[in-house]
């Protein structure tokens, strides 16, 4: 048996994926499916953000850029070139990952807080590009005709396929961040997160590692963006690059416990549930940002190590099983 399969955490992730895939399929529960789709999206965004935030110690306020660009590329390939969904998703993911590598080699020369500021600027820059780029319909965006769902067996079947794909993307995200964490690459990233100068002196090739982490954290969110906007059959700059979602990813990662794989998934699920509950009450629907803000402030002030920090301190043995 390969060593990876002997690790309990490998099977815990597999179990989570199985629950996500099976639960809504029982009794064709569409409502549960939509809620879990969002949870899977949050888990995807947050665990990829975590590679930068939790491991490498770099705050990325603009992780939404990957999601939005992936969405644009995918929708554009489907609508203008009639590409099949799968190929569009893959190309979008690879292109955004490559772009992130190039961006990363540039802006990752900025350290700590300056990097965080630059990531805000990147969102502005990419959004301005999308608004002025005619093939992407400018600020009006791109609409897909409902005919695109035909090859997937009509809208109802297509929504299920999209859901399963999203769960797959979520699973890959969890495995990716787990594999990075237990690898030599991850050890280097953790060292950078603790003390970047000391890490470089110990021989960690810091610029390359940071750029690779940035790029790795771009690939799956781009695919998730492609799926999400393919599902809505519509994309425009203000939705694609809405800072709310990257903020929520940040809240989720901090809530669960940055740097842990389990915590981030747990945080995403809890946040989705909480949000879903509050959104149904009228008063709160306008105040999603306020909710995220208050939650983030409380976490940063009082529980900087998040849920997993609490679990680890209460049940030290959990550290051995839950990464």
């Amino acid at each position, binding site marked *: 048996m390969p060593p990876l399969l002997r690790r309990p955490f490998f099977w815990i992730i597999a179990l989570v994926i199985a629950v996500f895939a099976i639960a809504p399929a029982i009794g064709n529960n569409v409502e549960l499916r939509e809620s879990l789709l969002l949870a899977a999206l949050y888990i995807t965004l947050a665990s990829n953000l975590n590679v930068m935030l939790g491991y490498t110690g770099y705050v990325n306020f603009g992780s939404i850029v990957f999601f939005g660009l992936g969405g644009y590329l995918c929708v554009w390939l489907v609508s203008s070139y009639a590409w099949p969904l799968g190929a569009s998703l893959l190309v979008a993911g690879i292109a955004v990952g490559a772009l992130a590598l190039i961006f990363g080699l540039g802006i990752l020369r900025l350290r700590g807080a300056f990097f965080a500021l630059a990531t805000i600027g990147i969102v502005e820059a990419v959004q301005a590009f999308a608004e002025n780029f005619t093939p992407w319909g400018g600020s009006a965006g791109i609409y897909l005709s409902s005919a695109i769902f035909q090859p997937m067996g009509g809208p109802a079947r297509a929504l299920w396929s999209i859901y399963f794909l999203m769960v797959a993307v979520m699973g890959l995200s969890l495995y990716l961040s787990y594999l990075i964490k237990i*690898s*030599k690459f991850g*050890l*280097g990233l*953790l*060292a950078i997160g*603790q*003390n970047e*100068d*000391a*890490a*470089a*002196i*110990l*021989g*960690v*090739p*810091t610029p390359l590692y940071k750029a690779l982490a940035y790029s790795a954290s771009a690939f799956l969110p781009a695919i998730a963006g492609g799926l999400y906007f393919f599902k809505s059959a519509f994309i425009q700059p203000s939705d694609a690059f809405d800072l709310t979602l990257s903020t929520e990813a940040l809240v989720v990662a901090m809530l669960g416990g940055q740097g842990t794989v389990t915590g981030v998934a747990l945080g995403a699920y809890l946040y989705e549930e909480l949000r879903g509950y509050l959104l149904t009450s009228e008063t709160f629907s306008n105040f999603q940002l306020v909710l995220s803000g208050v939650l983030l402030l409380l976490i940063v002030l009082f529980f900087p190590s998040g849920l997993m920090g609490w679990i680890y301190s209460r049940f030290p043995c959990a550290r051995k099983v839950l990464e």
Partner: protein
Amino acid sequence: MTALLELHNVSKRFGGLQALRELSFAIEEGEILGLIGPNGAGKSTLFNLINGVYTPDSGRIVFRGADITGEKPYRIARRGLARTHQIVQPLSNMTVLENCMVGACFGRENLPLARADEAARDAIAVAGLEERAGTPGIQLTIAGKKRLELARALAASPVLLLLDEVLAGLNPTEVERMIGVIRRIRERGVTVLIIEHLMQAIMSLSDRIVVLNFGEKLAEGMPAEVARNAQVIEAYLGDPRLAAELQSGT
């Protein structure tokens, strides 16, 4: 013997301060070279130039026959140079073992994780930290952190080890133990360049000594020669206690 590290006319200036001026010397393979000098003589700056944290304004640094002037620290580390810091720099929330694994993974041998674990445990044993392997770096005592610095540098299995005041802040018993550790390191064939203020210790450890004063080389030679050098004694005259130690040290 061949020179492992050569400095040719290396200069470095910070604003109005000439930290190092036209400094040249060489370290032979297998020796322990002591670097002494009053505070502000440029000793730590020299370490930062050798391992790539700073780039010299002029001059060349040659390590194992290759010109490494201006190379990034992580490349120089990969060539087989490791160091400790005067102000300890633990990877705070990582355990002693993890700290040392970083050293082993990204040092000269570029080991994969599984083998890095062995190398790290080996280095931890040499530094005498076995019982602390699972402790986060930040929770160690000062002496423990100094040992961690040393273990982490050793785990990289360096060819040349730069030690920056590893004895400072330790009590006499700890100093004795640390000196033993340094001797054992040299027995493994590692060349050592050491900065130290404890005169007795450095005089007895070093094969040769280089004395820096105001960024320039004041003297170079066997410990006994250096201790008799009039200029060296004069440089330390501001501190008679040190001058006395210097003469009685050998």
